[in-house]
Structure formats: structure tokens, C-alpha cells
């Protein structure tokens, strides 16, 4: 209850510190979507994927193309989002099919290549027919419109000014709940158990009757669809996208979020995503003023400190918490001991 109340009022508290913080929170929620999607592939099924950002890109471009003056199509977001998710899922299967026999490092390299291929396509599909508008990206993307409410504009309701980012925040919060529920239900299902079985011992999983080909492709497809949804929302919120947003370092960052929090554990992954989304922003807003106050001038750029801390965090993690901050623990099932013991 308390958490719910805090989440409901958060944007107003954040607005006090500047609308920028609401935007940052919205992006952080998108990273939670992405991390939870990647967690299905990496955390549940144990398949190392370094090209995950490709699905984010697919979702974003689907939205941009179907809701902008670029092609002159303006579909509502609740139609586009499922299309983006479905297309991303198809891309997931496209990536999964040739990599079924690969594991570990080899899989990581191939998926990394896949991510780059998608980005390069986005960059170059402006000729001979202009589909993606190349490196310039697509601008003037429609904001979300729902029931007459335009999420791109400020509104005054009951004497209270509600700005665009705040509206998106509530929409994202709703989506987030859906995403978490879907994730938890998947994990605790016949399919989720099959994913984990493949992660634990693929040979035993095959021998026990799991069609590992199908179940792995399902992991790629499901994980990708979350990326597609996140991409669609990203395009709507930013109202502008370009291939630059879908580079390898993004894939690496999302993977770092999953690993930092604790692969396979939903709450750990969420915490990891929030931590890695907010920490750099905090730094951005503290490093400069602190240095100005102490030294009277800027000695070290925030970006340098950010990379320094990121590197330090990685080293410390590997040394002390290799399984993540909140590693996966066996899920306790809900029946009592006596029931089991008899």
C-alpha cells in the first residue's frame, strides 16, 4: 500500500526537483522493461545475448513508421505496440534459429553481430526507397493519444498542471505492472521451468522430453517482444529516434543491469535496472556542483567519473557478488511442511 502510494505521488515530488527527473524516471522504467525481457533469455534460459538492443530498435522503428509524418501513417499506439512486440518476436526467432547450437561465448559473439546488423540496416535503409530515413532518424513522431488525452502536452486537471512526462509516467507504471505480472507468471509455469531446465542442464532437459529447439526459440521470441514494447514507448516519449540510440553499448548496459541485480530474479533485475539508470544521472547532477564548491573549478568530467565508478562496480561485483546483488534463490512453494512430510 505504502509503496503504491509512493509510486502514485512520485512524479509530483520529482517535478519539484525539475521535470527532467520525471523524464529520467520514465527512461528508467523503459530500462526495467528491457532488463526483464533480456532476463528471460539470459536469466531463465541461460542464453547469453549481446544484441538485445536490436529488438528495442525494431519496436521503436515500428512505432515511428506507423505514427509519424515520415510515411504519413498515424495509427493509435494500442495497435502499434502489439505489432511492434510481434515483429520483435519474429526477429527474436530469426536470431534464435541459426544460433540454436551455440552456447556461451560463441552465442554472445553471434548475437552481438546480429545487433550490429540491425543497426546498420536502420542506418542504410534510406535508399533506394526511404524507409528508415537513415542516420537522420525519424522526427515528429506522434505522442500517445488515448481517449482524447494527448500525452505529449501539458494539461490542467482540477487546477493541477499535469505535464506530458507525468502522464507517460502513469502509463508506464501501468505497463510495468503488466510486464512484471507476465514475467512472474512465465517464470512460474511449465514453459518457465523448461527454460530453467535448459539453463541448468540442456542434455538432461532433452532426455526428459523437452523440445529444446522450440523452447529456446520461445525464450528469444518472448524476450524480444518485451524489447519491442519498450522500443515503441521510447519512440512515443522521445518523439524522435535515430539509429544512434540502438548501439552495442546499450546492449551491454542492459546486460549489466540484468547481471548486477541477479540473473533470473525479477526483483533483483528491476533493482539493477533502476540502479544503473539513476546512478549516472545522480552523478551528473552532483559531480559538477560538488567540484565547483570544493575546488572552485571542474577537475574531472562527470563522464569520466561515471566510467570510473562503473568499472569499479564491475570489479567489486565480480570479486564479492558474482551472482548479482540479489541472486536467484529457490522459490519457496506455498504449501506447508506437514503436507509435504506425510
Amino acid at each position: 500500500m505504502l509503496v503504491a502510494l509512493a509510486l502514485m505521488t512520485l512524479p509530483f515530488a520529482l517535478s519539484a526537483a525539475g521535470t527532467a527527473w520525471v523524464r529520467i524516471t520514465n527512461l528508467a522504467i523503459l530500462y526495467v522493461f528491457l532488463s526483464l525481457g533480456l532476463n528471460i533469455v539470459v536469466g531463465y534460459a541461460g542464453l547469453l545475448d549481446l544484441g538485445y538492443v536490436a529488438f528495442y530498435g525494431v519496436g521503436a522503428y515500428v512505432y515511428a513508421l506507423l505514427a509519424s509524418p515520415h510515411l504519413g501513417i498515424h495509427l493509435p499506439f494500442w495497435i502499434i505496440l502489439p505489432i511492434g512486440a510481434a515483429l520483435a518476436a519474429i526477429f527474436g526467432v530469426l536470431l534464435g534459429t541459426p544460433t540454436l547450437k551455440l552456447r556461451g561465448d560463441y552465442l554472445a559473439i553471434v548475437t552481438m553481430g546480429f545487433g550490429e546488423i540491425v543497426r546498420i540496416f536502420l542506418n542504410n535503409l534510406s535508399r533506394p526507397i526511404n524507409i528508415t530515413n537513415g542516420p537522420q532518424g525519424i522526427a515528429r513522431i506522434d505522442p500517445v493519444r488515448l481517449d482524447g488525452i494527448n500525452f505529449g502536452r501539458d494539461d490542467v486537471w482540477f487546477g493541477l498542471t499535469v505535464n506530458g512526462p507525468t502522464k507517460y509516467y502513469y502509463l508506464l507504471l501501468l505497463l510495468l505492472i503488466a510486464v512484471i505480472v507476465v514475467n512472474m507468471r512465465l517464470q512460474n509455469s511449465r514453459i518457465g521451468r523448461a527454460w530453467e531446465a535448459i539453463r541448468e542442464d540442456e542434455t538432461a532437459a532433452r532426455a526428459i522430453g523437452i523440445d529444446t529447439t522450440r523452447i529456446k526459440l520461445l525464450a528469444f521470441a518472448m524476450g524480444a517482444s518485451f524489447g519491442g514494447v519498450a522500443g515503441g514507448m521510447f519512440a512515443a516519449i522521445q518523439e524522435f529516434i535515430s539509429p544512434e540510440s540502438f548501439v552495442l553499448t546499450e546492449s551491454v548496459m542492459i546486460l549489466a543491469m540484468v547481471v548486477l541485480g541477479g540473473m533470473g530474479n525479477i526483483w533483483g533485475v528491476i533493482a539493477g535496472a533502476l540502479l544503473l539508470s539513476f546512478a549516472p544521472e545522480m552523478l551528473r547532477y552532483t559531480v559538477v556542483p560538488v567540484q565547483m564548491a570544493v575546488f572552485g573549478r571542474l577537475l574531472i568530467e562527470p563522464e569520466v567519473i561515471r566510467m570510473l565508478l562503473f568499472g569499479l562496480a564491475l570489479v567489486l561485483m565480480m570479486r564479492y557478488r558474482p551472482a548479482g546483488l540479489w541472486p536467484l534463490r529457490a522459490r519457496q512453494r506455498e504449501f506447508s511442511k506437514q503436507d509435504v512430510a506425510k
Partner: protein
Amino acid sequence: MSAILLEAHAVAKRFGGIRALHDVSLTIRQGEIYGLIGPNGAGKTTFFNVLTGLYSATTGSFTFAGAPLKISAPHQVARAGIARTFQNIRLFANMTALENVMVGRHVRTRAGVLGAVLRDAGTRAEEAAIERRALEMLHYVGIADRANDLARNLPYGDQRRLEIARALATDPKLLALDEPAAGMNATETAALRTLVAGLRADGLTVLLIEHDVKLVMGLCDRVAVLDYGEKIAEDVPEKVQRDPKVIEAYLGV
């Protein structure tokens, strides 16, 4: 004489120059415990791997339950009704004992992604049935009190039992056990013997690889002996024990 469950027809398997199996033919009857013995490296595990589709046979084929066994993928063999355990225990180490057995129900259940997400009545009922059945299996092998422990935290003997429970959860017609008593102490071996005899009493057919001669001779209805990939004997234990070829293979003369 009861019906034939599994028939191997001249099954051969080569690894490069190594002839791991050479034209092995054998018949396993419904409801019996069939022992497969032989010195180290004789090809016993290879026979299991070929039968369960983990390796493809170089030549030869199987008939199972009256029909040719199609071995294009291991999961199809499991669906056809053959379940196995591994010489080196292969559990899903970071899942609970109960979850391990629940995975065993995968091949007999249907819920997909949509069912998992929507949790409709049908899926919930299936999920409850999976859990109930898995718990039954844990009771059956006698480790129900460890249901919520991670597989890797179970004592060695219980891990062997858990692997059997997981295999049983697939509703097999034939259960293939690869050295289930390996590494067990005398008490654990005795308990295992009771368990396997109980399986036969409940109508299951068991294919048993085992090094413990006393266990094999006491438990099996019939025994086949492999040596350098060839079947050199197949009979009731008493006769096999006295077969000069078998004695020679074991003494390595």
C-alpha cells in the same frame, strides 16, 4: 512368456576408429528387470545414449512397444515412453527437488505461453495436477521431505532417487538406469534395490546398467553382457554368471 517391449536390431555405434557398439541385438520383455553389464568402456552408456537419441546410431534400429522407434530427437524418445537416468547424476541443480520432478511432467502436459500468462482455469488445473503428481513421485522414491530443497543440496543418495523420480514423472514404459548404485553405501544400495524391485512390482520395465554384481544378480530377471561393444551373453543371471566367455571378459584373460 510376456510380450516384448524393446527390441534392438544390430545396433552399431562408431566414434571415429572406436567401435563402441558392434551389432548389438537384444530383447527386453514387458515387466522385467533387464541387466546390462560389462567391463569399463564396454559400451553400456553408449547403448543408452543411442537408445535415447542423444547419439545417433551408425547402423541398426529399435522396435519399441510394437512399433519402430523414431529417434530423430531425444524428446521424442521420452514422449514414446523411455526415460533414463545418467551415470554422472544430471539434475537441474539450482531448482528444487519438486521443480525437478515437475519438469519431468513437461512431456505429458501442454500449457503454452498464452496459458502461462492468462492463467485460465485449464492451465491452473494442469499446473495443480503437475505439482500433485510430482509430489506423489517424491513420496514414491521416499524423499518428499526434501521437496523444497535445491537439488544440489541433497545428499548423494537422495540425488540418485530424485533423478529416478524425475524420470518416473514422464510416465515411462521403460525406465533405463545407468549405474544407479554407483557411489552408494551398503544401506543406500539396499534401499535402492527395494525401490527398483518395487518398480517392477508396479508393472514397470527396467533396463539396468550396474557394476555391483551382487545387485544385478539378485535383482535382474535377465542379463546381457557387453564386451568391447559386442554382446557376448544374454540369459538368466545364474547362467550368465557361469558363462566362460563372461568370466574371461571380466578377468581380462
